Structures are given as structure tokens and as C-alpha cells.
């Protein structure tokens, strides 16, 4: 159906030129799901754009994009108009941005139906309702009149899928459909595409930077690096025994719930101004030799590979990716011994039954973001905090940092209260500013957390200024921390927008470290970063978190990243702690159904982890679950009883971990049954 042959795209702008794609060839057949993976800037979106004939201005395209035999690049306006939508429909990378903000989503869908399926008004509305239902939107009738901004990320992605399928295309393209979504949603969305291929016989092109997450649903994968196809082949094999060093690097960068350690690949993807003369990966490749840097490897079928497995490499690797990786990392090995020791030292962080309610500006009510969280953290300890998007993780971080005040309960950092709390004194003025520097936060958005119009050197030194250090001392401390982050001094004079994401996050960590705080909170520090950069930053964080006399809190919606270096982990759900315990205990032997659900939906590479059968499927989205009187999970839990709905269970100890669920003892048996009758 789709056959791309030797496609090259050169984007010419005065003063700069980007070779976005160089000699890309692959094809998609009806009923097939093809995954297109690679790092940011690899050219994935450019391929998608070429297929729908929407290349950016200044593009020079050679080669062919054959769709049902005709070349999209050379179609005239009418042919193109017929091709778009009906032939190929694309789901955009950022679904909320791709929905028109001023038109109801129902109307947007009806527009597509009317254009491509020649439906009349009422008919189209009915069809729209059905489509919404089909992609898993509940109460679709009501949602038809919603606007894009009223949708959550997952909902918007579903709407986007319905819009694309509403065009009844032969080929469906999804550009990073799951970025920004949390694990439970990711699975659900990806399944929609598999479904489209299986039931409607559409071809599907799934684009992602994350090999692991799309691996499950794809028939074949194409790996793109710096605008070139480095490897393509059957998904299962490519993932289990990738032959190209880049594919291997990509896979190793992804953390795994099973505990396989992340291996960071140094360096970054080159920005090509011309089609490469050599292997574009040469600079980062451990196997590179003279040939690699002088010639560009041709794409060849892999010797001994099954199906149409081919790659462009002079040194194909054959070993399986991670034979015999240790299941526990060294840091977690010590974890068991630590709590006893930690209890003796004064706690760095103490949170006692803290509630946070965001008041709405007008009127009464508000959003109850944290509901009675109690935590204690000793020096040297690393705490992981996991949970779905919106469960209150960032709120917890802000609470610790004194950026929000607890509505009730207390928060103490290094013995001091940072904000006004009922009945407690707090430092003021300079003392408060010093107290604040005892805890530091590393943000999710690395560039956004740096003041855009100040050189980064300024930002790093900020905590030192509050501490009243002299400029000379400041410079020395900043220099030291830069060395630790492996950054060059020259970076101090740069502005945030001149930094790459990875550099910016190193700066962010440097700023957190420079004042020697007692506590560092990492709020999803890698989720905005590229896969291989993520791995690099995680390595840095693991190093920092291992500092003996400092406590760390590591927040993530992704359990796998936490496993690498946390000692303890708490699972947050709707502002409450539902399970807590040493990281290996919680991950290997989860007690709470919610924890099981999270673990179950975490991506894992073909069969590495063996707990698939125990996965718990939650029945609804988070936003539809309202915490009433009983267990907050009651509305979504498949094992819910009347007691759960009426009454809330407190955290109970089960061995080394604690969980808040009435049905913990019965769970293993229940899960077995659920697997039989879904």
C-alpha cells in the first residue's frame, strides 16, 4: 500500500540547511502495524509529513512516496486533496494542539465524516457518537459538544484517533501518540491502533521515540537515526536481538521494571546539513572503526535474519541484549539494612498527615490534591514516589519545597517549617531564604526552570547568593559542581535557550547540588528528555542520590526509572499513599491492586519480565474516578466490594511493605480468576 523509496528531504533556509531525511525506504502493507522509532530529530515526523504531502516550506524532496502506486510528492492539488484523509490520515504528535480550540470536537469529527464519507448532518452525528464510543470515550453524546481544552491528554488522544479513523483512511499514521501519557493510558491507546489494523485492515504507521512501549503492538519496526534507516525488521526479533549498535543503545537506555540497569550512551545525535557520507552513529558507537567513519554502510538484509530484517551497519551485533543482567542493583542491596540506621539520625523531611487543597479563585470548593500524606525521610535515603498523572506527585514536591502551604498537617524540612503552618513558627527574611536552600528541587521542564533572560551561571549561583557567600567562594563552588556534572565552564555564559535538554537538566541538578542541601527532590526530571539523554541523566541522578548524607525524593510516573536507585518507594493515588515499602519488595511483591496495575502496564521488552499474567486491569480512567467516602480506587478497581466503597482502609503492614487495601490477602487468588474471565 505505502512504499517509500529512497526518500531524501533537504530543508533549505538561508543560513542553515538540514538534511532531515536521507535515502529512506520502507513500506507498510494493509493490516500491518509498522513502528517507526528513533530519537528526537531523527526525522520520524518528517516521514509522516512526506506521506501526507505536508513538507515544511523550503524542503527539497527527492525519491518517491508511493501510495497505491502514485507518488504523493508529485500529486497535483486535487489528487492530494483526495489522498489526504481518505488515503492517509494522521494523528498528530500533540493531540490537544492538533484539535481546533474553537470548534467542538463533535463538529470536528462530523466535518471529517461529511467530507470523506459523504454523510449528512444527523447521520454523521450518530456515526460520530459511535466512533467516540469505539475509541473508549465514555458518555460520548455529551463529549460531542466538548472543546479540546476540556479534555485530558488521554481523552484528546482518543479523539484524535477517532478523527483520523473518521476519515476512513487506508493508512493510519500516529505520530508519538503516547508521549506525555502515563503508563496505564499508553497501553490502552496503543491497543487502539492494533485494533484498527486487525479489524479494519488498515495499515498503521506508529511513530515513537520509545521502542519498548510500542514493541508489543507492532508487526515490524523501522529504526531511524539522523534521517537514515539504520535497521528494520520484525518487531519481536529486532527488539530481542537488535543487530545495529544504535538500536541496542536505544533499548539499553530504557529502564525496565524488571530491574535491568540502564546503560547510558554518551553523546548526542548529529545535526546533519547534508546526507551523511559515513555512518551517522560512528561518533557514539563502541564498535566503530575506520570503515565506519569513511563510508556509509548500505542497507542490507541481515545474514541469518528471518523475514525482511535488514540493517545498515558494518558490524552487526548478534548477542542478545542483556544476557544475565543482575536483577538487583548494588544500591538497592544495601536498602534492607538502612532503615534501622536511618531511624537514629534526625529526619531530613517529616510530613505529617498533610492535606493540600487548591482553592478555586472564586466561589467555594477546590481541588483536594493531597489527602493525608505522612512521610519521613532520613539522610542518605532515597525515596521513590510513583503514580499516575494528576495523582498529586508534583503537589507533594511543592509541599516539600514550601511552594504550597499545607491546608492541614505539617511539613518540616531540616527541622524548619518553610511556609506558614497552623500553630508553628517559621523563619522570616534571610533566615527563611537560607532555610529554603536546605531543600532543592529538580524540575520536569529543564529549560523552563531556568530564567530565560539570565545566563545559566547566574541561575546556578542563586542558592549561594541566598546563603550570602562572596563572589569568589561562589565561583569556586560553581566550578566544582560543574565538574561533577561534566560540563564545560563556558556554559555559564550561555542562555537557557542555547542549551540542549540534557545540558539544561545537568544545570538544573548542578543548581540543586551547589548549596549542599540536605534534601533534593527530583520531579520527573527525565520525562521531557530524549531517550538516550534520559539514560545519561538517570546515571547522573543515581550518582547524586547515592551521596551519603543527603536524602533524595525521586518522583516519576514510570516505575521502572524509580527502581534503579530508590531505597524505598511510595505509590500515590489520588493524593493518598496506597502502598509503601522497600523498592524491591514493592516491585517484586506488590500488595495493592493499583500497584499491580501500574506494574502491569509498564512496558517491558519481549518476555524479560515474567509477571504479565498477574497484571490488574483498571476499568476506568483516573479522571472518572471520584474519591468519595470509601477507597479512592473503588470506582476503578475490578475487585471492589461494598466495604471498599463505604470505608477506607488505613496503611497496613504486610511484611516489609505497607498497603491500604481491604482485599490484600485475597488478591493473588482473585487475580488468577480475572485472567480467565476478563
Amino acid at each position, binding site marked *: 500500500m505505502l512504499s517509500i*523509496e529512497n526518500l531524501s528531504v533537504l530543508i533549505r533556509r538561508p543560513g542553515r540547511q538540514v538534511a532531515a531525511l536521507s535515502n529512506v525506504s520502507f513500506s507498510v502493507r494493509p493490516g500491518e502495524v509498522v513502528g517507526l522509532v528513533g530519537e528526537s530529530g531523527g526525522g520520524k515526523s518528517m516521514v509522516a509529513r512526506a506521506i501526507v504531502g505536508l513538507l515544511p*516550506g523550503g524542503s527539497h524532496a527527492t525519491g518517491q512516496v508511493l501510495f497505491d502506486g502514485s507518488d504523493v510528492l508529485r500529486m497535483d492539488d486535487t489528487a492530494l486533496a483526495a489522498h489526504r484523509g481518505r488515503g492517509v490520515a494522521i494523528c498528530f504528535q500533540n493531540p490537544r494542539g492538533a484539535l481546533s480550540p474553537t470548534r467542538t470536537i463533535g463538529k470536528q469529527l462530523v466535518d471529517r465524516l461529511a467530507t470523506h464519507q459523504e454523510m449528512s448532518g444527523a447521520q454523521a452525528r450518530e456515526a460520530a457518537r459511535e466512533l467516540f464510543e469505539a475509541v473508549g470515550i465514555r458518555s460520548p453524546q455529551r463529549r460531542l459538544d466538548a472543546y479540546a481544552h476540556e479534555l485530558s491528554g488521554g481523552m484528546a488522544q482518543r479523539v484524535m484517533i477517532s478523527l483520523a479513523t473518521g476519515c476512513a483512511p487506508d493508512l493510519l499514521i500516529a505520530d508519538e501518540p503516547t508521549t506525555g501519557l502515563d503508563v496505564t493510558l499508553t497501553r490502552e491507546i496503543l491497543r487502539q491502533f492494533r485494533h484498527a489494523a486487525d479489524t479494519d485492515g488498515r495499515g498503521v504507521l506508529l511513530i515513537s521515540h520509545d521502542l519498548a512501549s510500542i514493541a508489543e503492538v507492532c508487526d515490524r519496526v523501522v529504526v531511524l537515526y539522523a534521517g537514515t534507516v539504520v535497521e528494520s525488521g520484525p518487531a519481536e526479533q529486532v527488539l530481542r536481538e537488535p543487530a545495529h549498535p544504535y538500536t541496542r543503545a536505544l533499548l539499553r537506555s530504557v529502564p525496565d521494571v524488571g530491574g535491568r540497569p540502564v546503560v547510558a550512551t554518551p553523546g548526542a545525535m548529529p545535526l546533519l546539513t547534508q546526507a551523511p557520507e559515513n555512518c551517522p552513529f560512528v561518533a557514539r558507537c563502541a564498535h566503530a572503526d575506520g570503515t565506519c567513519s569513511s563510508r556509509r554502510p548500505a542497507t542490507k538484509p541481515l545474514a541469518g535474519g528471518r523475514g525482511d530484517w535488514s540493517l545498515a551497519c558494518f558490524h552487526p551485533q548478534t548477542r542478545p541484549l542483556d544476557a544475565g543482567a543482575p536483577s538487583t542493583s548494588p544500591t538497592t542491596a544495601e536498602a534492607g539494612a538502612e532503615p534501622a540506621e536511618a531511624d537514629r539520625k534526625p529526619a531530613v523531611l517529616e510530613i505529617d498527615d498533610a492535606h493540600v487543597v487548591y482553592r478555586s479563585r472564586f466561589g467555594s470548593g477546590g481541588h483536594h490534591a493531597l489527602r493525608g500524606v505522612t512521610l519521613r525521610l532520613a539522610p542518605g535515603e532515597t525515596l521513590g514516589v510513583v503514580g499516575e498523572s494528576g495523582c498529586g506527585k508534583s503537589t507533594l514536591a511543592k509541599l516539600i*519545597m514550601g511552594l504550597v502551604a499545607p491546608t492541614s498537617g505539617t511539613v518540616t524540612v531540616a527541622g524548619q517549617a518553610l511556609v506558614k503552618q497552623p500553630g508553628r513558627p517559621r523563619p522570616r527574611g534571610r533566615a527563611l531564604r537560607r532555610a529554603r536552600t536546605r531543600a532543592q528541587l529538580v524540575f520536569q521542564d529543564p529549560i523552563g526552570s531556568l530564567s530565560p533572560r539570565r545566563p545559566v551561571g547566574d541561575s546556578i549561583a542563586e542558592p549561594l547568593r541566598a546563603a550570602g557567600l562572596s563572589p569568589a567562594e561562589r565561583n569556586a563552588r560553581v566550578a566544582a559542581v560543574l565538574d561533577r556534572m561534566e560540563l564545560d565552564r563556558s556554559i555559564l555564559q550561555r542562555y537557557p535557550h542555547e542549551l540542549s535538554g540534557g545540558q539544561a537538566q545537568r544545570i538544573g541538578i548542578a543548581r540543586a547540588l551547589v548549596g549542599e542541601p540536605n534534601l533534593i527532590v527530583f520531579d520527573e526530571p527525565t520525562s521531557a528528555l530524549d531517550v538516550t539523554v534520559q539514560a545519561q541523566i538517570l546515571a547522573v541522578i543515581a550518582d547524586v542520590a547515592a551521596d551519603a548524607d543527603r536524602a533524595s525524593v525521586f518522583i516519576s510516573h514510570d516505575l521502572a526509572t524509580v527502581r534503579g536507585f530508590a531505597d524505598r518507594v511510595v505509590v500515590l493515588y489520588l493524593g493518598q499513599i496506597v502502598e509503601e515499602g522497600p523498592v524491591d519488595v514493592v516491585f517484586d511483591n506488590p500488595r495493592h491492586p493499583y500497584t499491580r496495575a501500574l506494574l502491569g502496564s509498564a512496558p517491558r521488552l519481549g518476555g524479560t519480565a515474567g509477571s504479565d499474567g498477574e497484571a490488574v486491569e483498571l476499568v476506568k480512567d483516573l479522571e472518572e474516578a471520584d474519591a468519595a467516602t470509601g477507597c479512592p480506587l473503588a470506582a476503578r478497581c475490578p475487585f471492589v466490594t461494598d466495604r471498599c466503597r463505604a470505608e477506607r482502609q488505613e496503611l497496613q503492614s504486610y511484611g516489609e511493605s505497607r498497603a491500604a487495601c481491604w482485599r490484600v490477602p485475597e488478591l493473588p487468588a482473585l487475580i488468577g480468576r480475572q485472567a480467565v474471565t476478563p
Partner: protein
Amino acid sequence: MAELRTAVTGDSTVPVVVPGGDRDSRFARRLIIAGATILSVVALVAVFAPLLSPWGETEIDPANTLVAPGGNHLLGTDGNGMDIWSRMLYAARLDLGIALAAVALAVVVGTLLGLIAGYFGGWLDDVLMRVVDIFQSFPTFILALAVAALLGNGTINLIITIAAVNAPAYARLVRAEVRSLRELPFVDAAITSGASPVGVLWRHLLPNSLTPVRVIAPLNCGWAMLTLAGLSFLGLGVSIPEAEWGAMISLGAADVVGGRWWTSVPPGLALFVCVLGFSLLGEGLQDRANAKRR
């Protein structure tokens, strides 16, 4: 995103070219260059007016009133016998000076108010914004006349008047900017790094909130000049007989009907060109800012 242009050839090695790209920013650059050039010329004229003008700013040639261009008077004389060309050059000083000073004052005052209102919020914000509302809804020329009548009609008072009329817009702009910036992580980062409120305002919010101000200010300068001309027309402008384009135009406007175009057309053109310079600069800056946002 531009559409593919058809290149009906079967040869797949011939590139298909999508037109477009960066012409937007190229034109923006041209606008900026054009505007800046005009303004530099005007500024040079203002500085070197005494060298370029054969007559004094208020020098009267009593024997030659309302004479046509030519001879002793390059652009003729006005009803008082003053040399139009010389006055036109001298006027650049007052016009540029007043416009720049007024806008600068408006920017300083407005930014300060906006920063405070936006950062501290609450009742302070409410009160400041209501004050801004009051000033903004107060009719310009009544304000102008009031200031003129209170302080006498001097250059300083015109600056104050025009600044008072413009400051509210900046206050709003900066306030809105600060309010959205305040939500960004870098502010939280500064606070948790122990920066004091003043430090956050001064070192982080101020420099970042000035971006839109920079774009608006040139447009505003042009507008200030037009306001000045309007005030002169109402007799509220600079004091006679100082040379100012608006005053010259309004004095000479009635002459056009009698065919004596030279008393008001040359200063009119000068004003037009200068305002156009500001507009071009502003438009270019805005284009560039918009292009960056896309």
C-alpha cells in the same frame, strides 16, 4: 506549512521543491532595517539641525512672510516669516525628544505598576488595576488639557501627559506577562533557591516581562507623535513659537486651501516619515516576535 507544488515529472531524482520558508523573517528584517534607517536619519537631523538649517528656529524674516519655496527660503516661509525648512529640521528635536521621553516614562511607570500588581496579586493588584482602569478610561485630551492648565504648557508637561495616557497599557501588558510568568517553573526555582521577592521581581520577572514591551514601544512612539500633533491642533501642544511638526501642520493646515501647501505639507511629510519609521520598526519587531512564537 506550505503545500507541495506539482512537478509533473516521473524522475524521482529531481527534487520537488516546497516554496516558502523564511520569507517572513526576511521581510521582518527589512522592515526593521527600513524603520531603523529612517529613525537614525531623523535622529541625525535632530542633532545636526543647527548645521543644516540656514535660519534660526524662531528667526523671523519680516519682509518675506508666506513666500513660496525657492530663493532665500528652501521651502518658503510661514505666516510669521519663519523659514519652513529650518523649522522642520529643528522640530525633529522636540518631536523625537517628546515621543521618546514620554514613551520611556510610560514604560518605566507602567512596568513598575504592572510588576507589582502582577507579582503580589490580591488586593494590591485589584487596587492598582482599578487605578489603571481609571486612567485608561479618562479621555486623553481632557487629561492633556488638565495637565497643561495645571502645570502650564511646556515640553515637560506634554511628556507627562502622553506618558500618563500610555502608561496604563504597559501596566496591563506587564501584569499579564508577569502573571503568566509567575506560573512558570523558573520562578519556583528562584524561590526555592532562596531568592527574595524583590530578587525574583527584579532579576527574573522584570527582564522576562519586557519582551512584549520592546515590541510595543516603537509603535507607541509613533502614536505618541501623532497624539502630540493632535494636541497641537487643539492648541494644547508645545508653546509658540517653538518648532514642532504637529504645531506647524496645524498652523499651516488652513493655508493649503489657498494653495500655499508649503507651510504644512513639508512638516506633514516629516511627521509622516518619522511615524512611519516607528511603525515599520514596530511592525518588524512584532513580525519577528510572532515568527519566533510559531
